[in-house]
C-alpha cells in the first residue's frame, strides 16, 4: 500500500510517474498513442494516465460569452485609461534635471526645486523635505499652490494697498504684531 510506504519511496515513485506523464503528454503532441516508460511504473497507473489523457476533454466557453466578456474588459480598460489621464493613478517620475541633484542616485529622493531656488536660498536654511512628484492631476494642484504662494509673497513685499479691505487687514496685522500703526 503506497500510503504506508516510507516518504522517500513515495517521492521516488512520484518522480517516475512524473517523467512518464511528461513523456505521455509530449507524445500526444506527436499523436503517438503512448510513451516509453520506466519498467518500475505500475501498469495500472499507466493505464489510468492514458485514460485521463484521452477522456479529460477540454471545453470552450461559448462565443457569445467570450465576446460579451471581451466588451466588458474593453470598457474596464477604457475606464482605467481615463482614470490615469485624470490623475486618479499615476507613476512616480523623476523631475527633469533631478538626476544631477545632490541627493544620491535615487531621483525620487532629490528635491526638484533645489535648482529653481539656486543661490537665493540662504546657506543656513534647512533642506526642503524630499518628496516624489506624482505626475497627473497633482501637477495641476501643485502649480496652483505655487501661484498662490508667489502671489502672497508679492503682496507682502508691496507697499500699503489701496483697497479699503486690504488696508484694514494690514492694519489689524500690524496692530497684532505690536508695531506702531501708521494710518497714512
Amino acid at each position, binding site marked *: 500500500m*503506497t500510503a504506508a510506504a516510507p516518504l522517500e519511496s*513515495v*517521492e521516488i*515513485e*512520484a*518522480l517516475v*510517474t*512524473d517523467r512518464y*506523464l*511528461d513523456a505521455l*503528454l*509530449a507524445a500526444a*503532441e506527436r499523436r503517438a498513442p503512448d510513451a516509453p516508460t520506466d519498467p518500475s511504473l*505500475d501498469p*495500472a*497507473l499507466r*493505464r*489510468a*494516465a*492514458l*485514460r*485521463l*489523457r484521452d*477522456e*479529460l*476533454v*477540454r*471545453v*470552450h*466557453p*461559448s462565443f457569445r*460569452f*467570450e465576446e460579451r*466578456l*471581451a466588451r*466588458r*474588459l*474593453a470598457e*474596464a*480598460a*477604457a475606464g*482605467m*485609461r481615463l482614470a490615469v489621464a485624470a490623475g486618479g493613478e499615476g507613476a512616480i517620475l523623476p523631475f527633469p534635471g533631478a538626476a544631477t541633484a545632490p541627493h544620491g542616485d535615487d531621483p525620487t529622493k532629490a528635491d526638484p526645486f533645489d535648482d529653481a531656488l539656486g543661490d537665493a536660498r540662504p546657506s543656513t536654511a534647512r533642506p526642503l523635505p524630499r518628496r516624489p512628484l506624482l505626475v497627473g492631476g497633482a501637477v495641476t494642484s501643485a502649480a496652483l499652490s505655487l501661484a498662490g504662494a508667489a502671489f502672497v509673497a508679492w503682496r507682502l513685499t508691496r507697499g500699503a494697498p489701496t483697497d479699503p479691505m486690504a488696508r484694514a487687514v494690514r492694519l489689524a496685522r500690524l496692530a497684532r504684531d505690536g508695531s506702531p500703526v501708521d494710518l497714512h
Partner: protein
Amino acid sequence: MFGRGKGSEATGTAGRVVPLDPDRSLVRAAQADPARFDALYRKYVAQVYNVAYHELGDHHEAEDVTERTFLHALGALARFREEAPDDVAPEASTFRVWLLRIARNAVANQRRTLRRRPVTTLDAVGETAAPDDPERSVLARADASAAWAAVARLPGDRRRAVVLRFVEEMSTAEIAGVLGRSEGAVRVLLHRALRTVARDLGERGETR
C-alpha cells in the same frame, strides 16, 4: 504549449537560468495600455474557463469565475512582476501561472457562495443535456465517463493538480506555482491521484 520551456528565451540571473515568460511582451504592452489586455484575454480565456468548469462542473458558474478572474487580472496587472523566489522554479512566476492562481482563488470564492444554495453536479449536467444541442451532448458524454467521474471524486488539490496536468498540460513547476506548493509535493499529489483513479476504475471494472 507553455511551461515546458518551448519558445522561451533564457537569461542568467544570480547564477541560475531563468526562462523568460513567453507572454512578457504582451504583458508589458497591456501594462502600458490596458486596452491591449485583450490579447492576453483571448489567449487564456479558454484555459481559465476550463479550469473553472472542471472545478465547478457548471457552465454558468465557470463563466462567472472566468469573468471575475479576468476583471481582477486587468485591475491588478500593473502590480504583476515576474519574480521567482529562490525556492520556486522560475517558470512558476509567469503570467499564466499568476492568472490561474487568480482563477483558483475565484473558484474557491465561488465554492463558498455555492455552499449557500443547491449545486448542480457534473452528473446532472449530463442528464440535462438537450438532444438537439451537440455541444452539450458531447460534454454530457465526457461528463458521464468513468474517468471524469473518478477525477471529480478526488479531494481538492489532487483534483486540481490532475486537471492542470492533463487538461492544461502544465508542468509540475507551473502547477506548484498555481497551488502554492513545492514541486515535490505536486509530484506526490499527482502520483497519489493517479493511484486513486486507477483503483477507482479497477473497482468499477472500467480499466481498459
